[in-house]
């Protein structure tokens, strides 16, 4: 496939995934897809290491169930052969109180036979935790605020 068609497929994948269309997103990954994103499992138990479509379905459904609205922007997309890197800006609206969560993801994809076979993500996890907990954890750690987490 050409770089242009890879770009188009990746944008379609992002659109499906970040609109909550889990089955649509799964159509873009291989059966043995591997996912790795480090994150604090206490509040993001669905993240970490996942392998295969069934585990991906479970993870993406867990995310979709927690947010009433999901969308993304992709300001940077770099493609070289069968490798893709994306800077994704994600916007989620929480089910529990309708507040927005916004964070950036660096996602690196490996493609095989025009499908995604590997996903590795790096997230500004500290910011994400603060937004999910709605607490200024940095202020607590630096002593600007004394209450515990």
């Amino acid at each position, binding site marked *: 496939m050409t770089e242009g068609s890879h770009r188009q497929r990746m944008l379609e994948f992002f659109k499906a995934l970040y609109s909550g269309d889990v089955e649509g997103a799964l159509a873009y990954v291989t059966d043995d897809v591997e996912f790795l994103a480090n*994150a604090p499992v206490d*509040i993001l138990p*669905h993240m970490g290491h996942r392998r295969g479509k069934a585990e991906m379905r479970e993870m993406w459904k867990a995310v979709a169930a927690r947010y009433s609205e999901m969308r993304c922007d992709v300001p*940077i997309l770099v493609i070289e052969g069968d490798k893709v890197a994306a800077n994704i800006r994600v916007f989620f609206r929480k089910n529990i109180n309708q507040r927005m969560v916004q964070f950036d993801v660096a996602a690196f994809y490996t493609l095989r036979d025009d499908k995604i076979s590997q996903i590795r993500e*790096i*997230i500004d*996890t500290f910011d994400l935790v603060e937004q999910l907990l709605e607490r200024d954890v*940095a202020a607590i*750690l630096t002593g600007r605020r004394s209450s515990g*987490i």
Partner: protein
Amino acid sequence: MTEHSLWRFSRALHRAINERQPADLETLLDEDVDWAIYGPVDMFPFFGSRRGRAAVIDVIRQIADNFRVHRFDRESIMLGVDSASSMMRYSMTALDSNKPISLRIAHFAQFRAGRLTNFRVLVDTFDLVEQTVGYPIHLPRMAV
């Protein structure tokens, strides 16, 4: 074949951090470079956004005052015509505490005429904070 701008930039960046020699880096930065390292600026003042060559050189000095890079391994790299992205594993020492820090970092770089015009860095910041404070941060068990 001309060397990709990323390699010159990478060498100059690490020289600026480890040897405090920013002269090479300065020549590779666009005058109006747009620079951002995402993370808690309250805890790491060198995180955040910077605009312009002088501001970036200043922030590199701040990083050099705080860390020494021992090694980095590129786990994934993509080179575009005037862009590059890498995922890397860094081994560093925090100079104030002498603590070893091992960190996964992703960057997105854009160049024009061999000079860096845009740089975005994402770090697994929760992991970085835990390594820096030296203890695990206990979060409530909740799925949010």
